């Protein structure tokens, strides 16, 4: 059946990208796999309509985010709000330099709300424009800019260290 082949072809061609997106947003292998699978299972029956309206990528990314949110709600889990986290200064002797450690960045990204994380991944990993990101997040382009601005501000504050006198 042409429609089924079309769906399978898309999954074979773009499934890996979708998994990478999911992993970068959700920071967890299992969560990423479950969210992508849930999204694709739901999309399969609507594939004709989805693929007719253009590139299914943004739509499916949105489905992945929503699938994860639904799953978490179903199982009564919730993400730890950013405000509840205590910023700790693990400064050691080498921490005097202003240094953006990638592992620290990865850990800090995990503390962002999921939509801010998604916005950051879509902008700085996938290189998408605000309008495309808006489609994925289901919001306006100005909201996208605001989400990214807030995410960067949060990351900046958390990465900032005490200035070292010369």
């Amino acid at each position, binding site marked *: 059946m042409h429609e089924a082949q079309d769906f399978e072809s898309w999954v074979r061609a773009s*499934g890996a990208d979708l*998994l*990478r997106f999911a992993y*970068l947003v959700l920071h967890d292998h299992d969560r990423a796999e479950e969210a992508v*699978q849930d999204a694709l299972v739901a999309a399969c029956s609507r594939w004709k309509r989805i693929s007719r309206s253009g590139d299914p990528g943004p739509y499916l990314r949105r489905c992945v985010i929503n699938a994860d949110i639904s799953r978490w709600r179903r199982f009564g889990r919730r993400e730890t709000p950013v405000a509840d986290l205590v910023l700790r200064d693990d400064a050691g002797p080498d921490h005097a330099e*202003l240094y953006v450690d990638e592992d620290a*960045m990865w850990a800090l990204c995990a503390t962002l709300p999921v939509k801010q994380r998604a916005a950051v*991944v879509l902008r700085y990993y996938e290189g998408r424009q605000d309008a495309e990101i808006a489609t994925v997040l289901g919001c306006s382009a100005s909201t996208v800019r605001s989400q990214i601005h807030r995410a960067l501000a949060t*990351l900046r504050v958390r*990465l900032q260290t005490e200035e070292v006198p010369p």
Partner: protein
Amino acid sequence: MTDNPITDALRRTLTRHADDAPDDKGLLGGVQAGVRRRRRQRGVTVAAGTVSAAVAASGALWLSSPEPAPVAQPEWTTVIYQDIQLQVPAGWRVDIEPSCADAPCGLQSQDSAAAGSVVLEAGGSKSLRAYPSSGRVSPEPPRKTVTKTLVIGDREIVVRAADKAALARILGQIRLRPAG
């Protein structure tokens, strides 16, 4: 501090960690299994719905339902007789008559002979009869009836009609349950 170190670090971090993402080897197979599972679950739901609809259409009788008695709507007449609650369409007549053995007796509307009746025998000298009524009365019992006996607890309710179609119609119109 400008955004550049942050955004540069973001790009590096995300690019590096993208390599740690799960691979897509089992993705299509997992999705196909999920689609099949979903279709099976939907099939069960549709089948259950079909069964429910069939039961409702046949005039489901609450033979021993633990559910509370429904609030009688204006279009129903509710009668409680000998710890049985009977609901019939509001246009029906409900009489207390001398009990009869098998055939309907006493005053009986022509409509009840034609359309049928519901008789609650209480084991005494009286029984309750409910039937659609057009107001005409004929003293003569019908020559031929089709009956169905329903049991609620230790009570028997006899539903009579001139033919099977009328019997089915009556069964579809009445509601019976234990009173209280």
